């Protein structure tokens, strides 16, 4: 029973982190229509921010990191991406690829490529039934659930969210209605960047901080986005849970390498058979303006 509870908590932990990254990827893909392959590198930036500020209280460092993520997103969107939107899919893909490479190299120069680490701010464990589980993981799970809940409420229950969804559905029509595409693009990319940076900051205490830290999160996050309905902002969150649930079930019986191979095989097959993604009824009525 304890083993089952631990597996369940591990699943929730993995799902929470992936959901945050997938949500940010989904935002960018939905609004900007670009595939941001630098998302993993943005996570890495968050981890290095926390390492740089390891002498500060964790919460303060996290706040500064999130603000830095917003600013970084604005700089990248205004400085680079806006010049390539009309150059086509390959141009935007290459642009984000280039951004990722530059971020990795900058990290390598600033921090060297040797592995870094930071301590968990909550070292203790909380007893759940007969199982002790890391307090930090439970706190992060709660934090991400609250954050994603607030973001989804923002998207689906506010006028700002309505404008965003209108822009995602039809950017030209939204522009005619007075919703500035430039401003929306910049805002979305900045928020999505901050979320990716935040995700990296939150997982930093659990692994080695290296310039390539975020790469292993990229493939599952993209699959989480792709199995969802295109343009859906709640979809990547559900997709992340679906990906992690499948992975958890596979890992229960198989070694990690085989489980991972089967997972990606199944996801690729699913996307091939159902390219329109998972569709479900979701009340999207925003507040009337």
């Amino acid at each position, binding site marked *: 029973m304890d083993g089952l509870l631990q597996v369940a908590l*591990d699943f929730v*932990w993995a799902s929470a982190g992936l959901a945050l990254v997938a949500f940010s990827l989904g935002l960018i893909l939905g609004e900007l229509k670009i595939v941001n392959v630098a998302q993993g590198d943005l996570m890495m930036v968050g981890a290095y921010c926390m390492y740089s500020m390891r002498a500060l209280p964790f919460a303060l460092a996290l706040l500064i990191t999130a603000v830095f993520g917003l600013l970084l997103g604005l700089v990248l969107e205004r400085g680079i991406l806006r010049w390539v939107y009309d150059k086509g899919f390959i141009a935007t893909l290459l642009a984000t690829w280039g951004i990722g490479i530059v971020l990795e190299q900058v990290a390598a120069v600033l921090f060297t490529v*040797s592995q870094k680490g930071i301590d968990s701010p909550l070292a203790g464990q909380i007893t759940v039934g007969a199982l002790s589980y890391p307090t930090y*993981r439970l706190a992060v799970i709660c934090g991400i659930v609250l954050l994603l809940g607030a973001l989804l409420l923002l998207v689906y229950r506010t006028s700002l969210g309505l404008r965003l969804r209108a822009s995602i559905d039809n950017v030209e029509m939204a522009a005619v209605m007075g919703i500035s595409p430039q401003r929306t693009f910049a805002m979305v990319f900045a928020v999505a960047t901050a979320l990716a940076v935040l995700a990296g900051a939150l997982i930093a205490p*659990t*692994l080695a901080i290296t310039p390539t830290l975020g790469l292993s999160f990229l493939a599952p996050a993209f699959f989480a986005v792709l199995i969802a309905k295109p343009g859906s902002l709640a979809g990547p969150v559900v997709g992340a849970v679906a990906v992690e649930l499948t992975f958890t079930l596979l890992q229960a019986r198989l070694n990690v390498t085989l489980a991972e191979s089967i997972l990606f095989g199944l996801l690729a097959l699913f996307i091939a058979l159902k390219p329109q993604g998972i569709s479900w009824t979701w009340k999207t009525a925003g507040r009337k303006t």
Partner: protein
Amino acid sequence: MKDNGNIRSLLPPLTRRSFTHGVGRFGAGLAAAGALGVPALIGTTARAAGFTGPRSFKIGFVAPLTGPVAPEGIAMQRGFDLGIATLNAAGGIAGHKVDVVSQDTQAVPAVAGTVVKKFIQEEKVDMIVGTITNDEEVVASQLCAAAGVPVLFPEHGFWHSFCNATTVMMGENSFDLNGPLVPFAAEKFGKKFFLIGSDFSYPHAYLTVAKNYMKQAGVTVLGELYAPLGTADWSSSIAKIKSAKPDVIYSCVVGGDAIAFVKQGASLGLLPGTPLTGDTLQPEFYPALGGATDGQYVCVRYSEDIKTDGNKKFIADYKKKYGEGPIPLVATSAYDTLSFVKAAVEKAASYDKKAVFNAFKGLEAKSILSDKPLRIDPMTMNPAYPMYITQIQKGGLYKIVKEVGLVKNDLKCEA
């Protein structure tokens, strides 16, 4: 070691660490060190130590400075640079300064091949030293064998495929690492082991050798898990290990994954309650682990606790040049390799490449590792290293708790 013949082909096809390239710069302190005498790099037991070469001795140093094994590559470069600076400050080889050309291989075999060819054909090097990954080493070994140029792999222990007319394997092998450790851990902690490793060829080969020793020690293997390189979440593997309740976790999880595995193992209550040993706990990881490995035992070739004059000097010079913190093992091997290079050239009394390679056979050279000269086994072209069981202390020192000495094996290069 009855089964050596059967498992020889499984010996480490990949090294677990990597190097970086670069030409060392002389530090002011190093010049002083040279003037005072540096026992390891100056000392030699070569018969023709009075030999004076016709010109500078030229080494081509290749290492992955960028790419997935760059941390190890940079550490190797640091050790090599320091070794070259120390060697030159002490008079060089055969009375001449040692010249170095170096280049990044990016851990890409094709790049390594291009660099090695360039060094041989254009730079006319006398010797190649480097790299880290097996794929690169295979290319380098084949090219050097074809050109008749000696090539030294500072981090690669014996591997049968590298038995040829020019390759010298300077690292410790999996027998050195596992032979003393398995019986020590079984006796100290119990005979129920759980094996875990990164999923590529080196950890598989390492654990295959370990299982041979486990069989001899009466160890029961409760489970064996492998996870792909780059695994960020070790929760499921840790849950499986916890449910098996082993006496010992015997691990060959490597690189940054090792840090993630240990940190998550500590946060999920697996460590430090269950002893963790194997090849996972590299000294350079200590600062990132926040003391999670304090008290654990590992078997190593090198420790900062080795109290030779050469090692004291090396530690002082290394930390002066690169700062405080644990010295990566790969840096020590790159540094020490140069002692053997100097001894071999002076023993050969020639820069002739064939003569230099032959001089490595049975060569005895002083090392920072021991007050006694170390010997390259002519049957394996691999030095026999005295090994140590160490316990990790708070602060990161790998304190020697048992001097194992040389580990016997019946390995040999065969036609």
